């Protein structure tokens, strides 16, 4: 039995956990057909861990949905599979390639897979009739997210309208929607990148190995370090180097850069982040760099 709270104080990490668990239970109680959007990245794994805690010892009362870009890192997919197996969760895969084949998404050869996910995702939500979709977004990630609600309403077209957001007071969430609409739910809204790592550290949560420093062949392109692979080959006078690197986010492997690092465990990563001087997305996500308002535009179209 745990008896550590003699002074009735809850650490901020425990308060965040309690808030997230409350959100999961509220959605499970009030929505007909929720789903958890699972990318295999650290944020969605933390989300899954919180969902596990919210309903223990029952199984998750909703399936997981992954948008398969066809360009995911193998390590991410294998971690996903072991989580799904351990929890006995139901997994739905929405493939970008299938969505392109079915004509839901147009592949013009220029648009990144992260952006093409929007079509595949909206299509999967509509086809399955999901009324609520949990996402791992955090408000500290980006300026547009800072204004998003925990319950973020999406219209028939899956769009977010920042000017039409519902006021969200106390811990009273309003989940009313009309047929065809759905709600995006962000249980990690108040977590920061550092909170996520502290939680992974404290709970010893299994995450893909590419988050930890390892040797990898990389190419420096547009100020980012990209991993050498079938899609990434040296162009012009780019040269292939072997470096100790880790990934800070794990999206589409053609767009996701890594950073030089010697941090091979969570405590070392926390120390690196505590002194980091560049935000997570700015350094390593090619798709956020096109314009200052890139995220705002993608969100309005129905991005996570």
């Amino acid at each position, binding site marked *: *039995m*745990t*008896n550590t*709270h003699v*002074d*009735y*104080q*809850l*650490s901020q990490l*425990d*308060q965040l956990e*309690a*808030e997230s*668990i*409350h959100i999961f*239970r509220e959605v499970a*109680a009030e929505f007909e057909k929720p789903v958890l959007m699972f990318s295999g990245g650290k944020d969605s794994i933390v989300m899954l861990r919180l969902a596990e805690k919210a*309903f*223990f*010892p*029952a199984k998750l009362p909703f399936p997981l949905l992954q948008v398969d870009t066809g360009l995911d890192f193998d390590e991410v997919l294998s971690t996903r599979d072991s989580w799904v197996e351990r929890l006995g969760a139901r997994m739905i895969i929405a493939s970008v390639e299938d969505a392109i084949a079915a004509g839901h998404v147009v592949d013009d050869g220029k648009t990144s897979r992260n952006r093409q996910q929007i079509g595949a995702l909206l299509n999967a939500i509509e086809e399955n009739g999901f009324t609520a979709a949990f996402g791992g977004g955090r*408000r500290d990630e980006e*300026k*547009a997210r*800072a*204004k998003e609600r925990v319950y973020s309403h999406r219209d028939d077209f899956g769009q977010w309208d*920042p*000017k039409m*957001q*519902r*006021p*969200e*007071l*106390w*811990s*009273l969430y*309003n989940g*009313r929607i*009309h047929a065809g609409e759905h709600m995006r739910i962000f249980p990690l*809204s108040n977590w*920061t990148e*550092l909170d996520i790592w*502290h939680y992974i*550290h*404290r709970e010893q949560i299994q*995450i893909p*190995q590419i988050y*930890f420093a390892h040797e990898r062949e990389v190419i420096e392109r547009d100020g980012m370090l990209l991993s050498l692979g079938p899609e990434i080959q040296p162009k012009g006078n780019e040269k292939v180097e072997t470096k100790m690197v*880790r990934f800070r986010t794990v999206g589409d492997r053609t767009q996701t850069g890594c950073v030089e690092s010697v941090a091979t*465990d*969570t*405590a*070392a990563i926390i*120390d690196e982040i505590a002194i*980091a001087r*560049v*935000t997570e997305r*700015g350094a390593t996500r090619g798709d956020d760099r096109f314009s*200052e308002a890139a995220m*705002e535009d993608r969100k309005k179209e129905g991005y996570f």
Partner: protein
Amino acid sequence: MGSNESQTNDSHTVAQLEMDLLRFATAGSVDDGKSTLIGRLLLDSKSIFEDQLEAVESTSQSKGYDYTDLALLTDGLRSEREQGITIDVAYRYFATPSRKFIIADTPGHIQYTRNMVTGASTADLGLVLVDARQGLTEQSRRHAVLLSLLRVPHLVLAINKMDLVDWSQDVYDKIQKEFTTFATKLNIPDLEVIPISALQGDNVVNRSENTPWYSGPTLMHHLENVHVASDRDLVDTRFPVQYVIRPKSDQYHDFRGYAGQVAGGVLKKGDEVVVLPSGMTSTISRVELFDNEVSEAFPPMSVTVHLEDDVDVSRGDMIARPKNAPKPSQDIDAMVCWMTNEPLRPRQKLAIKHTTRTGRAMVKDIQYRLDVNSLHRDQEAGELGLNEIGRVQLRTTVPLLCDPYSKNRTTGSFILIDEATGVTVGAGMINSAT
């Protein structure tokens, strides 16, 4: 390669795991330097990253400013940057070694009362900014009234732009006196008045040499040390049941747990409890958090409670103590902040959500409209328009298990929802219920 099973539990990591939390709401307009102040807190606590600062520096340069406009750090949406205004509540995060802070950054314009109420609803502390040159304005009084109405227990009045009044103690004293007099009419248990310059950083994080006459704390020191743990009610046990966990598996065949977030008091094994509204009594047999039994549960923990007897409990019920339980009530007297264009009128019907209970409510009477500037009560109002606040009598279809908002901000609050559009249109704070 990597692992979580690191034994290098260095002090930095461990200390951060024990950090506590302060949620605060800021109020003030762009002119008061609110965004600059938040930018300053983020910058001086090293919560701003190089790429964010560089983006802001280059924008400031391209606009021809002499200094880096820290306000640009927090202006989120493109439409806001184009218009130079803030349209909605934005949440910001920063941490010092001892505490994490969540800022609900709300715009100060008159038409955005609803945002201010939203931001204040979860705040432990309210930060009101005034321009030293202008002193108290109608807007700063309104902000203080709203923070008081929302029962935000701690208030800081930051007198900004002290550099523009030559660090005059007279100016500080005059504003402080005026505000203290005004505050006697409000519910403000704890007030701190701090002279600052957000632009130059004086008394924000670092103590200013320009205010030798000021002996109080810097803003950051106060934010780091203000005591918020005792603001919770640890006496009156309130546990709104959110979800019933029934695994229906072979391993957990008879498992029946009542999941929820503690709203008040302390729950522990052996406690005699009453389930509302049925009035059935039982005893707590176990309190758990995930796969761990916990000795005591208190706000704001999310736990699962087991009872010794097989009583009928479902979502929307409340677990309390037999001698300390709210009386189920359908006649509610509350202060309501109205948040939509179409006014609230008598006989109007709405959906109401209170803790984990949802029902319908009808407006029986609008007793008065409160003028948040003069505190005048207009009893002839008859309706509440957008961003107006008034005292309202409601009749609900389901009994609410509630307390006065002044006793418990969780069991004393509700939202009103338009049944046709599904939009949240009102926020209520309960005075009394019968």
